[in-house]
């Protein structure tokens, strides 16, 4: 188990910058998830840690050792790829044993390690098969097995569940979490799926445009997104956002939109007339009571609850309710945006502290 230290890491392809001065530290045994939309640099960062790409600047330490100039094989890491990258001409057992063979581990020990990993992942009946004779979920498991037989200092996961169907993904997600609890190994996990990030991570790193947007526990990011990007990226259905202006009629701070006003409990340290972006999560919108009127545009029952698309003048909002409110399309309903649930973002998109 190794801690990983990333200091001022940047990466350019030619003149195109992909990562800007990233600083991160991953504690030994921690499960860190890098999340962001495609092209945000999360996979590049993982590949830099693995040694599959060369740094343009900064340094990376694994277990206290500077690895900048070490080849992948000397970094004591294992990686699970999105495409699994199983060796097609080798059996499942050989795939798992390959890294140990390269290290000239005695055959008896290899057999023991492969059996142990196979047992953990339920792969025993498949050991003699070639990868092409396996289903997607089984291949994924073999890829995991190949990583764990080595007992590496850290695991790197590059969107390992993206090629699976939804149900299997959910299942494997739980298995990965269980496995991490059992092995306690440092893990860095790249995904574009915010649910995966939320459910798996000890800490999430939200990346966008090659910069770290926020680092924190999953609930930190959910409850106190540092900026508009994180607010919009984490959560499904996504956070509602609409523009508003800060006004102080009679000295009382109020958010004003063309169609409604919300009195604020506390006065943000901003001049009157500042343009703000207001965010509120769909589940925090109170449907059926309150001072604000909206029209129901569309109703999406999810089984678990109901998503209601609402229009308030020019503003479109999504409300989510676990109840099954009797709404009908086109009807006008009253609703409330509880002020304690609002997220305020300044003109530069960063959060205004509560």
């Amino acid at each position, binding site marked *: 188990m190794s801690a990983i230290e990333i200091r001022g890491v940047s990466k350019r392809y030619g003149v195109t910058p992909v990562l800007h001065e990233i600083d991160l530290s991953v504690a030994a045994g921690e499960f860190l998830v890098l999340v962001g939309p495609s092209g945000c640099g999360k996979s590049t960062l993982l590949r830099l840690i693995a040694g599959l790409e060369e740094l343009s600047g900064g340094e990376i330490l694994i277990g206290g050792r500077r690895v900048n100039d070490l080849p*992948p*094989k000397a970094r004591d*890491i294992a990686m699970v*790829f999105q495409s699994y*990258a199983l*060796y097609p001409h080798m059996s499942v057992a050989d795939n798992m044993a390959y*890294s140990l063979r*390269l290290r000239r581990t005695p055959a008896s020990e290899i057999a023991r390690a492969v059996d142990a990993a196979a047992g953990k992942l339920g792969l025993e009946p498949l050991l003699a098969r070639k990868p092409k004779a396996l289903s997607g979920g089984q291949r994924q498991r073999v890829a995991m097995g190949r990583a764990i037989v080595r007992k590496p200092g850290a695991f790197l996961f590059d969107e390992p569940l993206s090629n699976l169907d939804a149900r299997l993904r959910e299942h494997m997600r739980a298995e990965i979490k269980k496995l991490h609890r059992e092995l306690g190994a440092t893990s860095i996990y790249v995904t574009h799926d915010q649910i995966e990030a939320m459910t798996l991570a000890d800490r999430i790193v939200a990346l966008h445009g090659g910069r770290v947007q926020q680092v924190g526990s999953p609930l930190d990011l959910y409850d106190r997104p540092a900026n508009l990007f994180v607010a919009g990226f984490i959560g499904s259905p996504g956070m509602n956002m609409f523009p508003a202006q800060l006004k102080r009629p009679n000295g009382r701070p109020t958010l004003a939109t063309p169609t409604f006003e919300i009195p604020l409990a506390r006065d943000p340290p901003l001049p009157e007339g500042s343009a703000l972006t207001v965010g509120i999560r769909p589940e925090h919108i109170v449907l059926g009571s309150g001072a604000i009127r909206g029209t129901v545009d569309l109703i999406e029952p999810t089984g678990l609850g109901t998503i209601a698309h609402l229009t308030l003048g020019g503003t479109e909002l999504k409300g989510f309710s676990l109840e099954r409110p009797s709404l009908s399309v086109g009807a006008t309903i009253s609703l409330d945006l509880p002020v304690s649930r609002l997220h305020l973002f300044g003109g530069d998109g960063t959060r205004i502290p509560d």
Partner: protein
Amino acid sequence: MLRRALYWTVHYLLIALYVLFALFPLYWLLKVALTPNELLYSEGIRLWPSRASLEHFSFVLAHSDFPLFFRNSLIVSGATSLLATLLSSACGYALSRFRFQGKSLLVALMLVTQMFPLVMLIAPMFRLLVPLGLVNTLTGLIVVYTAFNAPFATFLMQSFFDAIPRELEEAAMIDGATRFGAFSRIILPLTLPGIAATAGFVFTAAWSELLFALMLNSSAHASTFPVGLLSFVSKFSVDFGQMMAAGVLALVPACLFFLMIQRFLVHGLTAGAVKG
């Protein structure tokens, strides 16, 4: 139902016609080779001679220089195939996997070599090979053939490497292999079909090459069999029977070679198309 049957009948009929068309010259080659001289002209266009004999074969094998030409061809084609395949595997891998300075220029130059007629090159090539002492040698032919076949073979190999996901070598390198180890133990075994196809292609190209073999090597001891075939044409007559017998014999190694590699070949030619 009837339409369907008709469709398939026509379908197979057309295929049969095509196969007949493609293979008929080979059949004629064999037929003439087996026809004794005295029947060759009298029974001209009969599909099968009234009496078949192996006399042309025994003459060609025992009393002509053909075994020598044959041996020369084997050496030249085998060595060319080996060299060009080794070279093009390495180049193809580099083109497929690495970014480096001047890559597009290199590719452009390699393409250019494939663009003009070989005839233009014969004189300069000859001038180059004379001072090197490579005229009238098998080595000279091997060098020339390798140079001419390597570019196309490189493109061929590159496409085979392109079809193999990069993650496989990355996984191997993380598992503990060096780049070369990942290449030789993971990528190479998976490219075997491609290598076989490339080797086959180069072998056939070298085996049937006439122009350079004729111009660069004028003495019999360094002639390959396509040149040898010409020796059956004399000023006043053409010995068709012996020529055809030699031709049939010349087909044998090419056929054997393809038989050997065909199980890779079929896979290789379709690998790019169906890779999931």
